[in-house]
Every structure is written in structure tokens, then in C-alpha cells.
């Protein structure tokens, strides 16, 4: 039987971020964006239902992120990658591209690990900031 269902820990994480007002992304074990909440939709200017699932290349092209000089940040250096690949949390500052403009944000990625087989994915929380932050 072909599996139609996400791991329980991802389902619970989705339910959590659906219920909070902090903008948040949910990625799976491959780093694919599988959900973001209403608050993240407001930050980005586009609801998740409009964009749907995205591979890392697709969400990089859509949102960035960029450093303070406007240079794209490599996927390997992002909190999401650390969380999914290494099972470690990471906090960073960077710019993202929204539907309206670029926005400086502070982001924390929290790995979701439910077995010895490794990460099931990660939650990434965003806090919009003024221009004082640095990448």
C-alpha cells in the first residue's frame, strides 16, 4: 500500500504551527517546504494554499534569502539545512523576498527528530526585524 501519510511528528508540528501567530515554515526530511502558517503567509504576502509544496531550489528562488549585501545565501549555510541535515538548531538573520518587498528577518530552525534514523524535518520560526540585523 502506497503511503499517503506524513510521519506523526510532522503532523503534530503542522498542527502546532497552524495554531500560533509566529510566522513558521515546516520542511520535511529532504528540506522540502510542506507547509507554512497563516502568519508566514501574511509576512510573505502569499498564503501557502497559493504556492503549495516547494523543493529547496523552488523556495530559494521564491524567497531568497539574501545577506545584508543582497547576495544569495547558500543552501548549506541556512538554518533549515543545519536542522534537517545535522539535526541541530540554528539561529540567523537574513533578508527574504516577499510579495511586496524585501524583509529583514530573524529565524530559528528547530529539528524534528523522532527516531534514530534521523531528522523527520524541521520547524523554522521567523521574526520580522528592522534594518539593524546582520546576516
Amino acid at each position, binding site marked *: 500500500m502506497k503511503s499517503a*501519510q506524513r510521519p506523526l511528528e510532522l503532523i503534530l508540528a503542522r498542527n502546532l504551527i497552524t495554531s500560533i501567530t509566529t510566522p513558521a515554515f515546516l520542511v520535511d526530511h529532504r528540506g522540502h517546504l510542506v507547509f507554512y502558517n497563516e502568519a508566514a503567509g501574511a509576512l510573505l504576502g502569499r498564503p501557502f494554499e497559493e504556492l503549495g509544496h516547494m523543493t529547496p531550489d523552488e523556495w530559494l528562488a521564491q524567497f531568497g534569502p539574501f545577506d545584508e549585501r543582497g547576495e544569495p545565501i547558500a543552501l548549506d549555510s541556512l538554518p533549515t539545512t543545519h536542522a534537517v541535515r545535522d539535526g541541530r538548531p540554528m539561529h540567523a538573520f537574513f533578508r527574504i523576498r516577499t510579495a511586496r518587498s524585501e524583509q529583514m528577518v530573524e529565524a530559528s530552525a528547530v529539528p524534528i527528530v523522532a527516531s534514530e534514523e534521523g531528522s523527520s524535518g524541521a520547524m523554522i520560526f521567523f521574526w520580522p526585524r528592522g534594518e539593524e540585523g546582520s546576516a
Partner: protein
Amino acid sequence: MRIKIYGARGSVPAPGPHMNRYGGNTSCIQLTLASGQRLILDAGTGIRTLGAAGEAGERIHILLTHLHLDHIQGLMFFAPCFHSEAEITIWGPSSPGASLEARIGRYISAPLSPVEVRELPCSLEFHDAPASEWELGSASVRAEAVTHRGPTLGYRITEGDLTLCYIPDHEPALGAPIEGLAPEWISGYDLARGADLLIHDCQYTDAEYPDHVGWGHSALGDALAFGHRVGARRMLLFHHDPLHSDEFLDRMGDAARARWADLGGDPGAVELAAEGAELNLAAERAAAAAS
């Protein structure tokens, strides 16, 4: 595939004159395969009656969904545990902190118990339920984690073309209404999809549920919505609240059938589990096909 309910109550045993028809014993079901092999689903207090029936013979497999007391309390009173010739295998959820035997041993040990697990004379094995499907007798068994408090499994058991799904403690609507979710985001969806019989948590009425959100159990409306979404052919609503009398459960059953019909189902395909009830899925299917 035949089943017999030995306990359908949730949380704590609820004996009493107002509980006689649905029963007061906690979760326990015997599943008898076509080969005669018996599987026991959970070891609530109902397993004491089952053990007293005294059918000896083949290895006994007990599949635990989780280790809350209403699912293991009967283990210490399961007669085969005290027979030296009995062979028992207990399957259950894994934990990063301790083995299944050690966790069950917290209950079967002082000061809660006069005996220790190691003192039981039967041949006793403990296994974490595998991540992939495995065979028990003539059945294929699959276990997956489901939404409840603490590590909790649901089971999908298939023999031939008949499938039973058992998810006695489950809150799939926690944080998100089931009706609006894609299947990939519904806890237990794969386990229950297209089951011939779904035995599912239905501890609360919809009116009671708001005071129990996050406790790990389903309201009637959510249980039915889950059964509808997974395409269950028949539902047995389970894990009755210890405060719900026979009369109260009768009314819940009436409401369940009406709401199942509203969802487009056959109202006769939904009922509340009652202690002592028996179902023969294979015979019922054969009879349905003949008619």
C-alpha cells in the same frame, strides 16, 4: 477473522449496575484468525476474563497500543502469565528511554505489584513493534504512531482480503478539523484506509470535547469524520468514558448512526462496542456476498 470484545471502557474500569450492557472492563479484544491463531489487542482489565477462558495451546501474541494503565492493567491478572507452559509475546511502542520490558516492569513491580516480571513462570518475550509490516500467523500486522499522549500505536491487521484497524486512543482532530485536511496530514489515515472494520476511540460527545482538548481522545463527530475520510466500511466506537452509563451510550449510539447516515453511510455500519460482543468478519462478508 473473528473478534470478541473483552473490554471497551476507557481510562479506568467502571463497574456498576448502570454499566452492565457495555461493560466496565478496560480495553481488550481477542482476534482469532482463520488459522486459529489468537491475537490479543491491549491488556486492559478485560484480559483477565479472556485468560480465565483457559484456551491453551499456541503462543499468545499481545499487541499493546501504549502503556497507559487502562491498556496494561489486566496483564498481572492474565492467567497464562502464571502457567509455566504458556508462551507469550508482548508487542508495543518503542521508547528512546527504556525497553518495553522495563517500562511494563514499572507496573509489574513493587510497590504496585506483589510480583516482578522476572518472577512470572511463563515464557515471556517483549518486542518493540517493527517499523515495517510483519507476519503473525496468517495475518500481516502493521503498527504506526498516532496522535495521543505519549508514544502510542494503532494497528492494521490484514488476513486474506479482510482488514481490521484498531486505534482505541486517538485524537486526530487535535489542532485541525479532519474535514479540511489532506489525507497526508491526518493521523492514522494509512492505518485505517479502507478497513473492513475500524475500532476507534469515541470517548466524548461533541459537547464534552471542548473541556478535554489535548487529552488524546476523540469526540463522536471527529471519530465519525475520521471513519468517513478513511473510507471504513464498518465502525465500532470504543474506549467509552467511565462516566457514560448504558443509557447515555445508547443515546450516543443513536446519534452516531444518524450522523453516519448524514455522511452518506449505512447507519447499520456504526455501533458502540459492548463487552462480550462477537463479530465474525469473514462470515458476515460471505453472507453479504450470498445475499
